[in-house]
């Protein structure tokens, strides 16, 4: 029964947070700033056209009415129409989302694997040159602005590796006959690697530092001493007894850094002209396309809330102390 209570509590909290996020989204875009139509960058728009647009968007109604209409729309999965393309925002966000997901996943995977590896080695070989290298490389990457690291990679690494630095596919691909699935896949990967690497390196810094300090704490615990005393190998002590327990804070950390992952991927996609959600956000800002920006922001917020919920539940599963 306890576990049911816990899960129900977390789900309820997540649902409430979603509601708060939706309301914040409405307040930010509809009441605190001017309205979307006056902000739109458009030279030919006449006053008449703008008045028509306002009516179309329901901006002439009272705030309260607008809020209920907004909630009703969201309940039906309707986030309004992009002012620029006049297409539904959900459609405008779908393709970029499909582009962003694998890139962010690849980058995060890279950072988790290397962060854990280097963090554990650092903690295990503490106060040696290996630890110092791990610590300082982690600190250095942690301190770098992602967009700057991206520029450095374009400048110094891309040429050497012969990888493309912009876009998501080679424009010449498929012109001379149909490209096979394998060729398309390779082309996608080639375009994805550098942005994913940038994101991965930035995150790697933070993960390595946290894994290191979590491991240091764990390796000082009595059960690690016991494991050593009963003659387990270093390998078994560190990976099976140490890391197992140090993994808990890492789960929380990955969830907590999701806001940063998303923020970082916005600037990284901009640097690499990678057509994902981040680039869509940049373009929406550029053209003052508020409905699109609003939709993108809501999407990002909801994904973070969802990830936090997943992390909470995972934590519950991993740590028996929470449930008992």
């Amino acid at each position, binding site marked *: 029964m306890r576990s049911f209570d816990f899960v129900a509590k977390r789900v309820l909290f997540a649902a409430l947070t979603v509601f708060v996020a939706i309301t914040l989204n409405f307040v930010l875009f509809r009441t*605190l700033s001017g309205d979307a139509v006056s902000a739109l960058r458009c030279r030919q728009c006449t006053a008449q056209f703008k008045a028509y647009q306002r009516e179309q968007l329901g901006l002439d109604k009272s705030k309260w009415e607008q809020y209920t209409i907004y909630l009703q729309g969201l309940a039906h999965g309707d986030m309004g129409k992009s002012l620029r393309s006049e297409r539904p925002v959900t459609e405008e966000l779908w393709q970029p989302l499909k582009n962003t997901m694998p890139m962010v996943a690849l980058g995060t995977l890279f950072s988790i694997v290397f962060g854990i590896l280097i963090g554990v080695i650092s903690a295990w070989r503490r106060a040696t040159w290996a630890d110092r290298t791990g610590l300082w490389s982690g600190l250095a990457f942690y301190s*770098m602005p992602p967009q700057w690291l991206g*520029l*450095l990679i374009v400048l110094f690494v891309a040429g050497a590796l012969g990888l493309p630095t912009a876009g998501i596919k080679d424009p010449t691909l498929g012109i001379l006959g149909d490209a096979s699935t394998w060729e398309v896949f390779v082309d996608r990967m080639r375009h994805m690697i550098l942005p994913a690497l940038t994101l991965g390196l930035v995150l790697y810094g933070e993960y390595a530092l946290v894994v290191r300090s979590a491991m240091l704490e764990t390796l000082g615990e009595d059960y690690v001493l016991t494991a050593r005393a009963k003659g387990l190998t270093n390998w078994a002590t560190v990976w099976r007894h140490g890391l197992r327990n140090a993994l808990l804070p890492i789960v929380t950390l990955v969830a907590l850094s999701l*806001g940063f992952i998303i923020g970082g991927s*916005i600037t990284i996609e901009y*640097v690499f002209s990678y057509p994902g959600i981040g680039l869509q956000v940049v373009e929406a*800002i550029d053209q003052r396309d508020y409905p699109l*920006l609003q939709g993108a922001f809501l999407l990002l917020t909801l994904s973070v809330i969802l990830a936090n919920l997943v992390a909470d539940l995972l934590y519950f599963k991993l740590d028996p102390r929470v449930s008992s």
Partner: protein
Amino acid sequence: MSAAIQGTAAAEGVDVSAARRPGSIRSVAFHEPTAIAGLAIIGIFVLIALLSPFLLPGDPKEKVGPIFEHPSASHPLGLDGGGADMVKLLIAGTRVSLLVGFCAALVSALIGGTVGLFSGFYGGKTDIALMRMTDYVIVIPDIPLMIVAAALFGRSLTNIIIIIGIIYWTTTARLIRAQVKSVRERVYVKRARALGAGNRRLIFKHVLPQVAPLLIANTVLLVAYAIFAETFITFLGLGDPSVISWGRLIENAFTDDAILNNAWWAIVPPGLCVTLVVLGATLFGQSLEDALNPRLRVGHLSVRRFKVRPLRGKLDSE
């Protein structure tokens, strides 16, 4: 309680040095090598910012040669995409970036400190209400929120400072709350209350001085976050168009196609400055926090203090 910590630490054969004594920033700042290094880095940049009126006669954006000119004896870091001297631009950027960093961190510390203090000191319903609010703000992704807010509210330096400050207070609030809750239960605070001290006197005379060092350590960390956040906002073209910051120099290098011109000197230095200051603030802030926060027995950054065993459970203040 403080004696108990030291007693346990001593029993475990740990050096009860200056860094151990809660509440003394000075001892940490001058004894921990990482803290000294961090402080030195910040100090140098602050000095540059303060001296910038003397170092920079005239307009830093003035065109002094062809665009993206290579570094030379007269212009050691070359020229940027507008033909302005990179060294001058960097000095001008130092001033603005540090200003944003310190002011935004101050706003955050003020909000977070107040929320944490009230929440921890009064407890009960105040605590629940404030912490609920904090929980909600923590979950909203900070950087996208800043970007959206900056896009909606116009491009001025003050706006950026306020936006960053208003979003980054949550961790401070939680940290301070936990600390205040433990201080509030200490015997001398209870004695003062028994002697008839009012809430205001208790807060300002007994609680605040105890949590102030931790608040300062946290503010130093916030400076790093704020400088970082400024480069994000500015990179997307949402910075104040009239001022030069490090973030803006990175943005300029990108939009002026420094990469196509192979002009590494326009790209590398501004980002390096950000990295150095963030590193410095992290080193300093983290060492202070490690030393001052009894809940973090194992230093995040220290290489040597690994033998200190966590005192979790004995010191549970929540």
